[in-house]
């Protein structure tokens, strides 16, 4: 799957996360249990007043979707990027 070229694998992310801000309740599970530490909490609030997470380190995300499994509110999920998308990112 991943390129043999080290510089490519370092710079291009393998995955990304999608956040549905209206559903999020700011429980911090995704941030606390992200295995690569790619997510962080922000001070930004959603319309209901909950603090939102963000993908602070997009290069670390490998799209494992563990955030999507922990999310009690079905608000966030990770997805792997295809090789072409990786280069675009």
């Amino acid at each position: 799957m991943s390129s043999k070229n080290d510089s490519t694998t370092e710079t291009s992310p393998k995955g990304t996360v999608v956040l549905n801000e209206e559903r999020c309740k700011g429980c911090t599970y995704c941030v606390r249990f992200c295995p690569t530490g790619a997510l962080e909490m922000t001070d930004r609030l959603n319309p209901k007043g909950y603090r939102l997470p963000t993908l602070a380190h997009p290069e670390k995300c490998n799209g494992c979707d563990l955030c999507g499994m922990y999310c009690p509110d079905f608000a966030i999920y990770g997805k792997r990027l295809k090789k072409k998308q990786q280069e675009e990112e």
Partner: protein
Amino acid sequence: MTEIKAHPVDGLLRTDRIPHIWCPGCGVGTSVNCFTRAIEKVGMDLDKLHVVSGIGCTGRVAGYINVDSFHTTHGRALAFATGLSLSRPDSKVVVYSGDGDLTAIGGNHLIHAARRNVDMTVICVNNYTYGMTGGQVTPTTPDKALASTAPFGNYEYTFNVPHLAVSSGATYVARWTVFHVRQLTRAMTKALRHKGFSFIEVLSPCPTLYMRRNKLGAAVNLMEYFKENAVVQDGADTATVGLESGETIIGEFVNVRKPTLKECYEERMSEALGDEFVPYEGDK
């Protein structure tokens, strides 16, 4: 970030009702997340899956999963599910309810459904309290924990729920926490494929009515506790897995195959009546 907002499990949820009513950090949402992924993994016909819930926070699950579902009276989810399982023998019936509903108010139904080995899956989300009604003591509330009906701390003995299920006759019994999402999903997959009475206890945080009253911090703190302290002991003797010891022992405890209620009934009736007995094959 891209603009596609549909969550991978949205297909199994009634998305018009989401955001749901559960508090921030409530473990019920995570367990439903695992359950929807288990349904996808098993790849079952959704017309042949029925979710039955009682009353309570976990009792709301039946209203959020987009399959045929029953929201029954308090504690009677198992009674409804037994009838459903017998009248639709080709379907899978799942009872999704809380500790108060299943072990306290529906305790009698739980032991008899397990004793008769009714073909169904029971998922019991144990959050140590009655969440929806104001944080009263349940049979699973730990020793000395505060509750609205125990302002000086709980003094009753605590139920060992997996041991109750095993000694009543359940044929698949596991306990996981909502921290162990992958293992929980795998256990739910096994339980859905299991023929007979399968029971999964899911330990879950109740941040609002249990943890705040007991000054245990946010929901994520109990998740951290599960991460650091839960001990996986597959096949452990369930008599030793009670939570009163302070240890959280989790894993798959029992997985055996025994004739179900319907199989026993058909065998007995065939022996007694011979050719006169016509087995019920469902409402065709």
